[in-house]
């Protein structure tokens, strides 16, 4: 940084503008956190991840700067499981993997298992019953909308609320 502030310059400005009232900043810590989060986990990162389970996992993985291999190692699960979760329309998660992943990601075990159930394909064929996924609205785009981004963020927040049972 090129900066040369002389006493003369400062004296001149202090004579014109009293800076002993200085202060700026209209953001609270929460909005600062949201901005930081958005810069860390950018909306395009969540595009083309078909399931909400995959998006929630990817969100936290990006937030922490982990590669799929990092997360697999930390959670003690197979890296192929991580890749499947983030790429499959209907990712299946074994009870063991759900528990280990929940612990690694800071999620409630119960809630992650519940989400995993929601995104799995129905056991009995029922045309009106489809797993929860984003494929229809996010496929082919390079980003998710602001509303979708906020929805994923809210989902992550819900998953991260640990219950006493955990």
């Amino acid at each position, binding site marked *: 940084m090129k900066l040369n502030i002389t006493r003369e310059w400062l004296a001149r*400005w202090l004579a014109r503008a009293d800076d002993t009232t200085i*202060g700026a*900043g209209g953001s609270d810590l929460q909005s600062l956190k949201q901005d930081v989060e958005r810069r860390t986990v950018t909306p395009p990162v969540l595009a083309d991840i078909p399931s909400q389970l995959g998006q929630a996992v990817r969100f936290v993985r990006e937030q922490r700067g982990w590669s799929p291999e990092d997360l697999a190692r930390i959670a003690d699960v197979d890296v192929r499981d991580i890749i499947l979760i983030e790429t499959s329309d209907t990712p299946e998660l074994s009870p063991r993997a759900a528990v280990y992943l929940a612990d690694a990601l800071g999620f409630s075990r119960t809630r992650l298992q519940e989400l995993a159930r929601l995104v799995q394909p129905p056991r009995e064929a029922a045309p009106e019953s489809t797993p929860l996924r984003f494929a229809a609205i996010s496929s082919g785009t390079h980003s998710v909308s602001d509303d979708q981004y906020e929805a994923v963020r809210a989902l992550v927040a819900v998953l991260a609320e640990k219950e006493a049972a955990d």
Partner: protein
Amino acid sequence: MSDPVAVPLRRVETGDFVNATLWPSVDEGFAAKADDTWLTFLAALRAERLARGLDTPAMEHEHWRWREKLAETKSLLAYLTMGVEYDGKPQGMMMLVTDGHFSRLSSKTAIPLVYVEFLAAAPWNLRTVVDRPKYAGVGSVLMRAAIATSMDLEFKGRLALHALPQAEGYYEAIGMVGLGPDAKKHNLKYYEFTSDGAQAFIG
């Protein structure tokens, strides 16, 4: 921290100048020191004045915790936090955001600028807190540093900020353009330094 820059401050009591240090990038330790020294000073001042039956005005940024702000943003290059130090104490701090902000003076083209996310002086340097501030010049030095950052980024000195209410007069006096209260920022008034305004301020 980056290489320090020598900057002047004026001791209000005597009118003479002291050689302070501007740190162009501070760490959480510096921020924690600002929280500790500023809040302790304020609490002690309040207790002392109360003992004499006097009120102490609230410091507008009393609820800020600089260490938390640093902890949140330290991994992002777009956030830059600076500090002014003298006598072993933080005299002022400023957090800048160097991308994603654009001038509101032109609606036709996206003209980038540096946004001053937070700027504060130590409570003993604020006329709004103490009867006689200790050092003047902290705000002016930090504004110069913000302009220098904008110039380094080839933004030609353009800056924007939301003024704390007691500081509005200062920003107007140095030539920033006021665009009125911003409902998205607690109705704080929004100000911009144009490139010409910044040049005039640098002198």
